């Protein structure tokens, strides 16, 4: 089976999360991704784990998670020869990605203006927390920073509680995913016009654009929307309900009279459900606190998965708040191929999550494990850059290849 991006070569100067995330998705679509890295300053995801630095650069499972299916070449970009080799590599490629702090690539002589000299139609993507221009361009940003500036932190959590710092890596992941989209837009433009492209993407802007609908209230009414937990403006019930078992919850949302009738049937037609307080959507919304309590009493001794099936059978939108352990063993997740086992020489055989689209004519797949640092150096230098063994030995000696 062919792959959508077969024949496309990506040079990946990404590190930490957002950049590597993007190139891993490109690899799953069939691109050849070559990660340029160095032992003199290893990717933080290799070198840092939990509470500090680690000796083994191959033992971090989060590095594994976002570098699957890539190749790795070690080039020390602080050396002149290392930079020159990186440029030669770019000259053979279609796309370059980097997410260093703005200005670093220019300092290395590897910015877009330099790279287009060696490959005029190169596509280059730069990702950073605030973007490569503007007064904040040099400011540091980790995931919680750009979810905060991007407006999602303020809208996450319960109305009566403080905003949420969104410590998960969802902001990086979304910045990386938007970069995949941008890369494909640029590849499509190049296919039509023959022209390359530079894209300077700000993670804060990406995050904010994904709640752009929420921003419209300010645009129209100069009013900032507020976080509202699990509730909805119109729908009720619309919440999570505690079920039997350890920290087990079921989400239920009712958006129509048919769905309400289905919920009432599933609950065994309790008398309270026919009260005027719950007769219409707006009545249910007005009496939401009592409604939530009554539904919670019903779910309290139920199994959350069995109750999902019961409610779905009655046409009601209901799903558990799944834990990781449940997802990795869920029958739908397994049937759709949402998880897959991948071998790794240090981490062992691990289950991991696949790319979210299935394509009927082109393969979307995890094509290999996460590479050891420098695992493909010989391939890159000999097969792509046509260096001979003596030259490679010299470069290793000089710690250009390092």
């Amino acid at each position, binding site marked *: 089976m062919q792959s959508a991006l077969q024949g496309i070569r990506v040079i990946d100067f990404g590190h930490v999360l957002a950049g590597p995330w993007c190139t891993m998705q490109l690899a799953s679509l069939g691109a050849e991704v070559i990660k340029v890295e160095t032992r003199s300053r290893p990717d933080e995801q290799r070198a840092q784990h939990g509470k500090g630095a680690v000796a083994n650069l191959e033992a971090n499972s989060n590095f594994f998670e976002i570098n699957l299916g890539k190749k790795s070449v070690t080039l020390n970009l602080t050396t002149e020869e290392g930079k020159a080799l990186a440029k030669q590599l770019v000259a053979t490629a279609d796309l370059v990605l980097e997410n260093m702090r703005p200005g670093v690539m220019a300092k290395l002589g590897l910015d877009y203006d330099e790279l287009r000299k060696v490959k005029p139609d190169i596509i280059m993507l730069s990702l950073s927390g605030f973007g490569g221009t503007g007064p904040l361009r040099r400011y540091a940003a980790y995931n919680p920073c750009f979810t905060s500036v991007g407006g999602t932190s303020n809208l996450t959590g319960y109305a009566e509680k403080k905003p949420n710092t969104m410590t998960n890596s969802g902001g990086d992941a979304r910045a990386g995913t938007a970069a995949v989209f941008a890369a494909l*837009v640029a590849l499509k433009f190049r296919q039509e016009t023959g022209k390359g492209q530079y894209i300077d993407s700000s993670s804060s802007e990406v995050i904010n654009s994904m709640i752009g609908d929420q921003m419209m209230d300010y645009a129209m009414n100069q009013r900032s929307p507020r976080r509202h937990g699990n509730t909805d403006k119109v729908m009720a019930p619309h919440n999570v309900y505690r079920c039997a078992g350890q920290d087990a919850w079921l989400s239920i949302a009712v958006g129509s009279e048919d769905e309400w009738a289905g919920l009432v049937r599933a609950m065994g037609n309790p008398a309270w459900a026919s009260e005027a307080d719950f007769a219409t959507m707006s009545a249910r919304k007005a009496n939401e606190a009592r409604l939530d309590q009554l539904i919670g009493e019903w779910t309290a001794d139920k199994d959350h998965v069995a109750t999902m099936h019961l409610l779905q059978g009655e046409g009601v939108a209901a799903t558990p708040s799944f834990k990781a352990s449940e997802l990795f063993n869920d029958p739908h997740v397994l049937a759709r191929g949402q998880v897959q086992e991948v071998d790794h020489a240090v981490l062992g055989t691990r289950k991991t999550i696949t790319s979210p689209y299935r394509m009927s004519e082109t393969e979307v797949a995890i094509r290999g494990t996460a590479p050891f640092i420098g695992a493909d150096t010989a391939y890159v230098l000999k097969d792509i850059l046509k260096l001979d063994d003596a030259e490679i030995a010299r470069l290793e000696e000089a710690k250009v290849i390092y």
Partner: protein
Amino acid sequence: MDALKARVIELADFVAGPYCGKLLADFGADVIKIEKPGRGDDARYIGPFKDDEPNPEASGTFLYLNTNKRSVELDIETAEGRATFLELIKTADVLIEDRMPGELAKLGLGYEDLHAVNPNLVVTSITPFGQVGPYKDFKAYHLNLYHASGQGYLLPMWAINLDVPPCQGPGYLGLFDGGMAGATATLAALFWRDAGGTGQHVDVSIHHAMMTLERSQLRRFIDDGVDPNRTGKGRLLESLVECKDGEFAVVILSSQQQWEGLWRAMGQPEWGAQPPFDTQKGRSDNYAELRKRLNDWSRTVSQDDLFHSIQREGSAAAPILTAEGVFKLEQFRQRGHFVTIEHPVAGALEYIAQPTRPSGVELAPKRPAPLLGQHTAEVLGELHASAN
């Protein structure tokens, strides 16, 4: 003028499918939105509305998600409507659809039917759980998807204990994730088709898209067999702090280096250089007390001062912005994060722009979301003209 040279038919409602269409339309694709006659997209009814007065032509959610598209009123439940739909499909490169699996096939408009009239067509189906698997027919709103994907179980992060129920994410973020996955796969399919391939069927599961995005947290279970949860115990990463003006900010605590910049910005308080607060481990073990002390300081400075003073010391911090804060941020303004679009009913409004703008591409001026059926005559006229 540059543009994605593609004609896209969008048979999709609310957020996920329309966001997929918007991503293509904003980069120049000709996106034709099929709407139910007299009713239109559900997002027309969700708001927000100017002064809270409902108007299906001026719903903020619809306006944002449907920029640069054309609207055609067409009822595919009728034989005539289906015939017109198939004529449109013959001229199209892409169909984006969000009907439940099997629904279009029942109307004679399934992938095989469409492929037969146009083998170069890319059909992108975006549904809660995808086209295959035991949950494929399950209903799910944004709330349900957030929880089913594993993302909801991890929110709100830093919950004080597990009595705080898990929580959905902001806005319709999860549905945007589905739309983004759809647009990405659609472009990949078009790229391959135009490099000598054919049309194909792209199956996007919003649930799968959201689960993929949470991989860095979910893998913790694979590491040690323990489910990560929303209490975030034992992970010294950052802290929420409250500022003098009642606004909030986040400070990063993930390394000694980050701490030292923050400590300098605080004016080098003695306690910060003494045990137990002088090491990562000490700060982690005394996180509650650390948070209290950080807040004692942060309540004496404004959100803005806190942000800039810590960043000046080389460490990361950020203001937690409301929508107002977003619109007032000079960084966003200077970078063209806002675009003013004039709409015949809603008037001129500032919209959030596409964030990944290619530098060398000159796109057509932004057009507003269409009125219901605004382009019916125009699009059907084009069809007849090309048929003659």
